[in-house]
């Protein structure tokens, strides 16, 4: 009897740990479609924001390598030359007129609904603890719904609900939650870009739409174009070199 109980317990633990492993594995795979790769990458992101009836457009060139990213504003002209630098989880803002860079937070607003952290490559597998909340079927496709909890305080979001397609292993829907568990922004993702990595083509994010959960007319649409693998020198990610 005692043995039966132990075996039951072991099966349960095993099943739970298998779920957690699956969630982490799914997250790792889905991160690749959003720039979470070991290789150096480069793409352009155009952000169209509609907020309280006003529209604005921004364009950034993103150079990413592993956990670092160098984001340079291209448009509008007045912002040209402004740089957002991601060093692991540390983030900096710099523009040529500044004597020193400004340490900023990933969760601060970049523009419209987009936070600073949304512009760079995604490393959710590194930054969040994932659990499989449930599976759902949408349009005949099975989706894993993961619940992500931030491992550190300075991350872009405290909690995320993440829909990953079983078919593509890519995330297509995301809910951003407050620390209290309230959904405050909703995102949808598309993967129409193709990125050639080591001779293999992988799907790469082409659009991320982030809407205010309460006022869905307030939204930012990030369009990703010209993604490519590029060999970056580590020097471009050094804040001291940026300010020189």
């Amino acid at each position, binding site marked *: 009897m005692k043995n039966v109980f132990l075996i039951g317990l072991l099966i349960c633990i095993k099943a739970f740990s298998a779920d957690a492993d699956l969630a982490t594995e799914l997250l790792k795979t889905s991160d690749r479609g959003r720039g979470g790769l070991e290789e150096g990458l480069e793409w352009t992101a155009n952000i169209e*924001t509609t*907020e*309280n009836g006003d529209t*604005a457009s*921004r364009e950034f060139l993103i150079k990413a390598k592993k956990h670092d990213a160098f984001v340079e504003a291209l448009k509008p002209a*007045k*912002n040209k030359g*402004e740089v957002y630098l991601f060093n692991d989880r540390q983030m900096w*803002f710099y*523009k040529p*007129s*500044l*004597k*020193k*860079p*400004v*340490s*900023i*937070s990933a969760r*601060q*607003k*970049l*523009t*419209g609904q987009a936070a*600073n952290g949304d512009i760079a490559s995604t490393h959710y597998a590194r930054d969040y603890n994932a659990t499989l909340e449930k599976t759902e079927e949408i349009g005949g496709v099975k989706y894993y719904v993961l619940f992500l909890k931030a491992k550190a305080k300075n991350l872009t979001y405290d909690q995320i609900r993440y829909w990953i397609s079983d078919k593509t292993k890519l995330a297509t829907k995301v809910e951003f939650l407050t620390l209290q568990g309230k959904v405050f922004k909703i995102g949808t993702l598309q993967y129409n870009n193709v990125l050639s990595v080591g001779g293999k083509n992988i799907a790469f994010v082409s659009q991320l739409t982030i809407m205010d959960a309460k006022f869905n007319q307030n939204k930012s649409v990030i369009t990703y174009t010209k993604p490519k693998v590029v060999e970056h020198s580590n020097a471009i990610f050094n804040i001291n070199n940026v300010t020189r």
Partner: protein
Amino acid sequence: MILKLAYLNLFRNKRRAISTGLAICIGFVGLNLLGAYIYRVKKALDTTSVYSALHGHVKVFKQDSLVQFALKPKKYIFQKEELDQMDQIFSEFSSEIEYIGKNINGSGLLSNGKMSHPILFYSFEPEIYAKSLTQPDISNWAKDWVLPKQIENVDIFKNNNEVMSVTPRIADIMSLTYPLNENESLQLAGRSLDGDLNAVNLELGAEHTTGLQFLEDTLVLVPLKKVQELLGTEGAESISIYLKPEASLAKFKKKLDEKLSSLAFKTESYNYYDEKINAVYLGTIGFLVVMGAFFVFLIGTAVSLTILNSLTMGIIERTREIGTLYAVGFKKKEVAKLFILENLILCVLSIAVGVLLSFVFASLVNSLNIRFTPPSVTGKIQFRLVWNFAIAASVAAFTLILTLISSFVVMKNKSKIKLIDLLNDSGA
């Protein structure tokens, strides 16, 4: 004759007259000094609100700006051309306006190249800052609430229009070393009117205190030009109007509101003590009023009871005399007048002594330079009692009214006794 009789009656029972007089005197001194303290704090709050906090006597915003500016700064900021139109209106009030300042307040990050600290920034214009901090009212009323260094800031700001001012607490949080001007520059980051992240360079060198603990780690002063650069505007969020001493605030504001209503854009103006722009003022004054009312109640009750007791005893002792006065033709109101007059004379004499005592006591307390830290205020301030004629006169009037009412109450009760019983009384 009645006055003389009332006066002479005071000397019948000297000990009681002295103890009653002393109670009135102490009550008067207590209320007067309490009034002096409240008056001092109110004047200090007035002065710091108008000049140190750069609110001016009247602050003008775009309508709904108080709530909406943080959300839609572009819509609620006064644009350059709107400021020009308002200047036209202000020029019509040259006999009342001493000077005018512009402000933009907001939130952002203060960064030293290594770390950033979230702050609130208040803008200032060096020449307006200089004028405001050198006002005689500041040295008269709020010397303790303005760091001596802040007065020195006047020259620092004039000489370098990139210098900002930080609090000692922020300097500590950001590991800034003294002297401040030997530190490298700081950067102020914030959102521009277009909603973009922006940052500007600022020089260190000046220091201020907010006077309030909860703002001490938050509030920095930044030159208006730098804030405008940060926000990408030539406009201003609000306009502070500093009035000449002889101007009437209420009349001015009424006339100004009338004139401003003719503009194409809607504005709203606030007095410096308005809760919407200066909650601390109202909170502090509210606290002082409640505290003052409590003490007025306590002291008033003690004085009233003493007068009631003294008068009752006096009447009991002189019952037959009262009967005699009635017998020779005095009416009730004439007898009452005699006793009330007696107490009023005692009250006036006590107040006269009280005026002298409170003046001496206030001088003594002030010369001792007792310092304390009021709740939520940063640093120690001097416990100063400012003797003021208006307060002394009000307290004197209050004490006299209290005496009058107490005397009236006793007389009203005693006048119910039958005349024959008064005459037959053998005296206490």
